[in-house]
């Protein structure tokens, strides 16, 4: 019987409920706090020169913005160059279409086993679950992804999927699922994972990976990783399927130089990852290894909706480094799973509403103190706090507002709330009403209602006996 580690229910998308539950989990909070403190320190240590850091962020922003400003052209160029290199390119508007494409490739090769390198887009697609439903085993090979797959969980962080677990928890999990002796020794645990997964790489019919950058100029798929599982997944099986979002394309090969440097330093504080793997085609006739077929699936899944609005388009600058979550006070306290979305944390709060609709993520834009840390560390300068405010506006639009921006807009619209704010505005813009309100609020201060939740941690609010206006007036009149 596997010992379940207390985490929030995966099926729940109720952020508020999940957050409440997560806040009570001291193990989770301890694991997250120490991990995020360390990641923040490492990032800063790898970017000590403020001039270089800030100018490179500006450049990263320009490179991504330029790519988006000619996205359709670059996607066509990418497809043409990949096709010339022997890679088959597929397009999918929805996750269902993407899964169908992957399944068709798998079935054409009578595939039974799929080994996966890390791919957040495949998480969007819930590819593992889908393939298993068709009798195909899909196994994660990134150590963190493998750990959470064994425990039937979802990633808690886009770079470090199992960061919420400590070695004791992984030791128990491996003992219960893999039948090894319990150990907390991280080296032993990793060597166990290596041994099990090597057999899977060896036997797999298909390797699946994500893509960090797709280079239009050369038709190159660039993957960064430390473990080597990405190279194994894309190099050992006879077929490689890469899945990625349509926004991941960059124009030129040189454009990856600043983005790569920003990505690895922002994510892990590393100047570079152990492997930077640039794939520009399947095995050629005279080569002795590498996949016989390489496929790229380009997925939209709500991205074109974000793209349609000039402001919201900036969401698609993201290079998935995770720095925003590492620096987020909300994320650090509730962990990634509480969000109930594939992408957690600040970036998750601005991308998920496009992927899933605001009706399914109604609380996400509000789950922020707007402290601004995410925007300050973003390597491509996505103004995350501004986009959160924008989504809050979209969230409370009248449902019949003719200006359609996104799926599920107006999900939090409340006629009562709107009326209250309209009343508040009137009160504050009419001098007569404002003075009357001030007069009665001070005279009747003993009747001030108690605001329960606020008063738990603060002094209960109570108006002063006289308003500042009145006091000043008295003072000036010499009374």
């Amino acid at each position, binding site marked *: 019987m596997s010992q379940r580690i207390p985490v929030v229910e995966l099926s729940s998308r109720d952020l508020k409920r999940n957050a409440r539950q997560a806040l009570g989990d001291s193990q989770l909070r301890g694991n997250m706090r120490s991990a995020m403190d360390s990641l923040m320190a490492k990032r800063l240590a790898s970017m000590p020169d403020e001039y270089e850091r800030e100018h490179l962020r500006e450049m990263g922003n320009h490179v991504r913005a330029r790519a988006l400003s000619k996205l359709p052209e670059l996607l066509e160029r990418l497809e043409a160059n990949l096709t010339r290199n022997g890679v088959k390119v597929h397009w999918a508007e929805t996750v269902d279409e993407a899964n169908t494409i992957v399944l068709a490739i798998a079935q054409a090769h009578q595939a039974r086993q799929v080994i996966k390198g890390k791919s957040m887009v495949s998480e969007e697609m819930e590819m593992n679950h889908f393939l298993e439903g068709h009798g195909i085993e899909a196994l994660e090979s990134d150590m963190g992804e493998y750990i959470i797959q064994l425990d039937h969980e979802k990633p808690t962080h886009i770079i*470090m999927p199992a960061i919420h677990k400590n070695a004791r928890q992984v030791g128990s999990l491996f003992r219960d699922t893999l039948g090894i002796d319990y150990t907390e020794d991280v080296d032993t645990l990793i060597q166990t994972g290596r041994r099990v997964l090597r057999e899977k790489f060896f036997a797999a019919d298909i390797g699946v990976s994500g893509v960090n950058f797709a280079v239009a100029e050369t038709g190159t798929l660039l993957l960064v990783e430390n473990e080597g599982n990405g190279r194994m997944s894309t190099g050992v099986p006879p077929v490689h399927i890469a899945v990625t979002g349509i926004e991941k394309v960059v124009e030129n090969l040189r454009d990856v130089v600043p983005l790569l440097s920003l990505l690895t330093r922002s994510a892990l504080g590393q100047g570079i990852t152990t492997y930077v793997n640039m794939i520009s085609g399947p095995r050629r006739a005279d080569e002795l290894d590498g996949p016989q077929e390489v496929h790229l699936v380009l997925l939209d899944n709500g991205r*074109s909706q974000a793209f349609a609005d000039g402001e919201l388009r900036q969401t698609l600058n993201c290079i998935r480094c995770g720095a925003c979550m590492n620096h987020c006070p909300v994320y650090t306290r509730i962990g990634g799973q509480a969000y109930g979305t594939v992408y957690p944390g600040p970036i998750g709060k601005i991308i998920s509403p496009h992927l899933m609709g605001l009706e399914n993520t109604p609380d996400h834009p509000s789950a922020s103190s707007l402290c601004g840390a995410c925007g300050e560390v973003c390597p491509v300068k996505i103004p995350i706090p501004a986009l959160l405010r924008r989504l809050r506006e979209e969230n409370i639009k009248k449902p019949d507002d003719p200006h359609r921006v996104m799926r599920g807009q107006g999900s939090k619209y409340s006629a009562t709330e709107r009326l209250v704010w309209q009343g508040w505005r009137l009160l504050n813009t009419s001098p007569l009403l404002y003075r009357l309100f001030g007069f009665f609020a001070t005279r009747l201060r003993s009747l001030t209602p108690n605001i329960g939740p606020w008063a738990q941690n603060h002094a209960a609010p109570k108006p002063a006996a006289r308003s500042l206006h009145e006091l000043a007036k008295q003072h000036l009149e010499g009374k």
Partner: protein
Amino acid sequence: MSAKANILAKLRNSLAGTQPLVDDFDEALVSEPWRYAPEQRVPRLRQLMEAVHTETHLTTLADWPALLERLLTEKQLGSLLIAPSTPWGAQLAEHFAGRSDAPHLKAYDRPVEEWKAELFNDTPASLTGTLGAIAATGSLILWPTREEPRLMSLVPPVHFAILKASEVYDNFYEVQQQQQWAGGMPTNALLVSGPSKTADIEQVLAYGAHGPKDLIVLILEDA
């Protein structure tokens, strides 16, 4: 309409009336902070690579086979995967020629399908060349070829790589420019900056995740 046509139509419609942003790529920003005096390149590379558990050795064009022999003995490696048709492979084969105590030198000379089990289970080490290295990040440059295929530097638990000291570049941008990468990429190009590693459990660094557990770089000072 196809998915492709739909997606492109939506994107084009969203961009209607806008101009593509100009390319203001700042070459200085990605190269100037990462320049080194010639005599600093190898020390910096070694420092960065050793910080992530790479073993590096300074040697010469004439001496490296003997050094490699010593390392194989020390590490108790009885066989080595080489590319006999490359200059390095030929030089090493010649070094061991006619010796009864020579390690078993294997060649990656047939498609992986024909010897996959042996590659995975009975090939403890490999030797490849490099296309140089990058001082800024401590990275080796590998372009797998027919002679040195992709899996040669990945599957064996120990990877020996030969690097000419004269081919250590300052930074990745310079490599792309001088080697004219944009003009034609191979099916697979790699930057390798250490042995395989992971920090996925509690951020504790562990080496030998899925790729080589040991990366040993032989730097030829006179080459």
